[in-house]
C-alpha cells in the first residue's frame, strides 16, 4: 500500500507559532520546551535522591552520630534513592529529556508526530513526581521496602511506610508508566515514520539509535511493572493473595493464602533488567556521538554499533532471572540465565572496543564533553567486568548480598550514565541555550566527580569481598569483619559528601552561563549532525524554517580527505563534498 510519507506532506501542515507566554513555555507542545521541562524536573528529583544518599552515607560512615537517622528512615532513604535515581531521574532524563530534544532535530523533523500527547506525557510525569514526593509527608512516611519492593515485606508490618507510603509509591509508578507510554509512542513513531528526505535508519546518529531502542524496551518492559504494581495494590488494599503466601507476621495471621512472592520477582525483574538497558542504551548512543565529534573521526564500525544496540536490547529480555539466583531456582534455569547474561558481554564488548578504536589516532580535543565520555569508558569497563563475576551463579551467591553488588551496579548504571548525562549536557548546552559555559570550571567538575566517584565505589568492592552485607543500617558486632572496614566506610562517606558538594560547580557554571556566558557559535564543536545545522540558533518552534533539511550522508563524515573542513554536515549535497566513508562503515 502506498502512502505519502510524513516528511513529504510538510507543506500541507499548518504551523502555528505559539505566541503567548503560557503556550510558549508552560502548556507548550514544542518538543524542545518539553525536553527542558522533563530535564529540569528530573534533575530536581535527582537532587533529592542525591541528598538521600548523603544521609545514608552519614549513617554508614559514622554510625550513631546522627540521631535524626534511625533504621526506619534509613530504609526509606534507600528505597526512595534507588527508585528516584533509576526511574524518575535517569529514565525520564534520557528519554523524556534527551529523547525529546534530540529525536526530531536529529531526524530532521519539525516536532514529534503527536505533540499534544507529548505535552500530556510531561504533565502526567510531573503528576507522578508530585505523588512520589508527597509520599515523604504522609503519616508513616514513604515506603522503606527497598527499591525492588519485594513482597511480602513491602506490605507487611515492620516495614516503614506500609500504610500510605507503599500505596503512593505504587500509584506513582503506575502514573509514571502512563506518562512514559505517551512519550515513548511518540519517540518510536517519530523515528520510524517522520524522518526527513535522505535520512535512512542507517544514517541516524547513534544517539537516536540508543534512545529509539531504549524506548522500545521501555514500552515492552514497563507493562510488567504496571501489572505487578496493580497486583500489589490489590494485595494491600483488597487483601487479595497474588504475591502473599500464608504467613504469620509478628505472631499474627494476616489472612493471606496461597500467593507467590516469586511471581512478583519475575514480573519485577522482567521489567527491571531491561530497565538497566533503558538507562544504558541512550548513554551508549550519546557517548558514541560525543567521542566521534570530539575526536574528529568517524565512529569505528557504525553498523556493528547499531547491531550491537539491537542485540543488547533483544538479549536484555531473556536475562532477568540473574537477579534472582539467591531466591533459588532450578539449576538448569540458573545455567540458562547465566549463559544469556554472559552472551550480552559480546555486543557490549564490541561497543567498548569501537569507542576505543574511534579514539585511536583521532584528533582528540579534551574538551569537557570528551572528558566525560572517556571517563564513561573507564567506569563502564569497570562496572562491566564486575558484571561478569555476578552473572555466574556460583560466584553470585556469596557476593549477592554484599557491597560488591552495590559497587557493581553503581559503577555500571549509576556513575556511567550520569557521566554521559553531564557530557551530553555540556555538549548540547550551546545548542539549547545559545551560550557557552566556562570550560575550566567544567574540567574541574569532571575531575572531581570522576576521581571522587572512584574513591566511593572502588573500596566498596573490597568491602564486598570482605563480606560486608548490603542494606544493613549498622554493622554492629560482626566478628568476621576487621575494624578497618569501618574506617573504609568513613572514607567512602567523606568521598561521597565531597562528590555531592562538587556538583555545585556544575550548577554555578550553568547559571553563570545563562546570565553572563558568551554567545556561542551555531556549531561550536564543528559537528556533522542535523541539530547543529538549524537556521536559527537556538532552534525555534518548527526547527527548520520554511523547508525541511535534506540529508545526503551519514552522521560521521569527520576528517574526510580532500575537503576544506574536517567535518561535512549531513545536509551538504553529494556533489559539494566527497562521499566520505559511509559505505565502508562495516570496517
Amino acid at each position, binding site marked *: 500500500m502506498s502512502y505519502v510519507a510524513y516528511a513529504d506532506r510538510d507543506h*500541507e501542515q499548518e504551523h502555528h507559532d505559539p505566541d503567548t507566554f503560557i503556550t510558549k513555555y508552560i502548556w507548550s507542545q514544542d518538543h524542545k520546551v518539553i525536553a527542558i521541562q522533563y530535564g529540569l524536573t528530573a534533575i530536581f528529583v535527582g537532587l533529592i535522591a542525591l541528598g538521600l544518599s548523603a544521609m545514608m552515607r552519614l549513617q554508614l560512615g559514622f554510625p550513631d552520630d546522627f540521631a535524626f537517622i534511625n533504621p526506619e528512615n534509613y530504609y526509606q532513604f534507600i528505597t526512595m534513592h534507588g527508585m528516584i535515581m533509576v526511574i524518575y531521574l535517569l529514565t525520564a532524563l534520557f528519554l523524556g529529556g534527551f529523547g525529546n530534544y534530540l529525536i526530531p532535530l536529529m531526524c530532521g523533523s519539525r516536532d514529534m508526530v503527536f505533540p499534544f500527547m507529548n505535552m500530556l506525557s510531561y504533565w502526567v510525569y510531573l503528576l507522578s513526581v508530585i505523588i512520589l514526593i508527597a509520599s515523604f509527608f504522609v503519616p508513616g512516611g514513604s515506603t522503606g521496602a527497598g527499591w525492588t519492593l519485594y513482597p511480602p515485606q513491602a506490605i507487611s508490618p515492620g516495614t516503614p511506610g506500609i500504610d500510605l507510603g507503599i500505596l503512593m509509591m505504587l500509584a506513582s509508578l503506575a502514573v509514571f508508566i502512563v506518562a512514559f507510554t505517551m512519550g515513548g509512542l511518540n519517540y518510536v513513531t517519530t523515528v520510524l515514520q517522520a524522518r526527513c528526505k535522505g535520512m535512512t535508519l542507517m544514517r541516524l546518529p547513534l544517539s537516536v539509535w540508543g534512545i529509539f531502542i531504549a524506548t522500545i524496551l521501555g514500552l515492552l518492559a514497563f507493562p510488567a511493572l504496571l*501489572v505487578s504494581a496493580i497486583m500489589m495494590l490489590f494485595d494491600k488494599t483488597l487483601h487479595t493473595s497474588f504475591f502473599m503466601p500464608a504467613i504469620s507476621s509478628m505472631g499474627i495471621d494476616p489472612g493471606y493464602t496461597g500467593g507467590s512472592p516469586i*511471581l512478583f520477582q519475575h514480573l519485577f525483574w522482567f521489567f527491571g533488567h531491561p530497565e538497566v538497558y533503558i538507562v544504558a542504551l541512550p548513554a551508549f548512543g550519546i557517548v558514541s556521538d560525543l567521542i566521534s565529534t570530539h575526536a574528529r573521526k568517524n565512529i569505528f564500525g557504525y553498523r556493528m554499533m547499531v547491531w550491537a544496540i539491537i542485540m543488547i536490547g533483544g538479549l536484555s529480555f531473556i536475562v532477568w532471572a540473574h537477579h534472582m539466583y539467591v531466591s533459588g531456582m532450578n539449576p538448569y534455569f540458573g545455567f540458562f540465565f547465566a549463559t544469556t547474561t554472559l552472551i550480552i558481554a559480546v555486543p557490549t564488548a564490541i561497543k567498548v572496543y569501537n569507542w576505543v578504536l574511534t579514539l585511536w589516532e583521532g584528533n582528540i580535543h579534551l574538551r569537557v564533553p570528551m572528558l566525560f565520555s572517556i571517563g564513561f569508558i573507564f567506569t563502564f569497563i569497570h562496572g562491566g567486568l564486575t558484571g561478569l563475576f555476578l552473572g555466574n551463579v556460583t560466584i553470585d551467591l556469596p557476593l549477592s548480598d554484599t557491597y560488591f553488588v552495590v559497587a557493581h551496579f553503581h559503577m555500571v548504571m549509576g556513575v556511567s550514565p550520569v557521566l554521559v548525562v553531564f557530557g551530553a549536557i555540556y555538549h548540547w548546552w550551546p545548542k539549547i541555550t545559545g551560550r557557552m559555559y566556562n570550560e575550566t570550571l567544567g574540567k574541574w567538575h569532571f575531575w572531581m566527580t570522576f576521581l571522587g566517584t572512584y574513591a566511593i565505589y572502588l573500596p566498596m568492592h573490597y568491602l564486598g569481598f570482605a563480606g560486608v552485607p548490603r542494606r544493613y543500617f549498622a554493622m554492629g558486632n560482626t566478628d568476621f569483619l576487621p575494624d578497618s572496614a569501618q574506617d573504609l566506610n568513613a572514607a567512602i562517606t567523606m568521598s561521597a559528601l565531597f562528590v555531592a558538594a562538587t556538583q555545585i560547580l556544575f550548577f554555578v557554571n550553568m547559571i553563570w552561563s545563562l546570565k553572563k556566558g558568551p554567545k556561542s557559535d551555531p556549531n561550536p564543536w564543528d559537528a556533522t549532525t542535523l541539530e547543529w545545522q538549524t537556521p536559527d540558533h537556538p532552534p525555534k518552534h518548527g526547527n527548520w524554517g520554511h523547508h525541511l533539511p535534506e540529508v545526503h550522508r551519514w552522521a560521521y563524515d569527520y576528517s574526510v580527505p580532500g575537503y576544506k573542513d574536517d567535518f561535512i554536515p549531513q545536509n551538504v549535497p553529494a556533489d559539494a563534498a566527497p562521499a566520505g566513508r559511509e559505505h565502508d562503515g562495516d570496517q
Partner: protein
Amino acid sequence: MSEAVLDSGATEAQGTQGLVDDWSRDKQVFGVPWGKAMMWIFLLSDTFIFSCFLVGYMMVRISTTDPWPVPSEVFALTLFGTSIPLVLIAIMTFILITSSGTMALAVNMGYRKDRKKTFWLMVATAALGASFVGMQAFEWTKLISEGVRPWGNPFGAAQFGSSFFMITGFHGLHVSAGVIYLLVIAFRVKNGFYEKHGGNYEIVEITGLYWHFVDLVWVFIFAFFYLW
C-alpha cells in the same frame, strides 16, 4: 512505497543487505500513516500488559494450595429450569465478535467516504460493546451476590475471585474506553470533522485496530480463564 533515496551512487544491494536497506530507507519505515504505526506499537505494549496479567493468573493458579473452582459450574446460568454452563460467556463472546464484524464494515465504508454508513456502523459497534460491558456487569453482580470477592469465595481458591475481577475488570475498562473512543470518532465522522482535515478516514481503521485487539484479548481470556 516511497522511492529509496541513496544519492551517493550506491546500487541496490542483494540478499540480507538489501533487506536491511529496504527496512531502513529514508522518511518512513512503514507505508502507513503515523497514527496507524503508533496504534500498532501501543497495541504491542498493551499485549505485554495482558500477557503479564494472564501469566500472573496462571502462576497463582498453580501456586495456590486450595482447589480451583470449576468454571463451567461457577459460570453456569439457570435458564428455563436447566443449568447451562458458560451460556452468558458464550453470548458475550458472540456479541463481541459480531462487533468486530460491524467494525470491519465501518472501516470499509470509511474508505469509501460513505460518512452516514460509517457513522451508523460505528455506533452499532459501540452499542454492541456497551451491551458486552452491561452483561459483564450482570455477571459481576451475580458472582458478588453468590459471595465471590477479590479476597475469597465459597467455591475454592481465593485467587479465583482476585484474578477474575482483575482481568475481566481490566478488559472491561478497555472495552468501555473503546466505546467512548468509537463514539467520539463516529460523531466526528458525522460532523464532517475529517472533511476539513484532508478528507481521509484512516482514523476509522486506527480505531478499528484497537477494537479488534480488545476483541482478540477477550478470546484469550475466554480460553485461559473460562475454558481451562
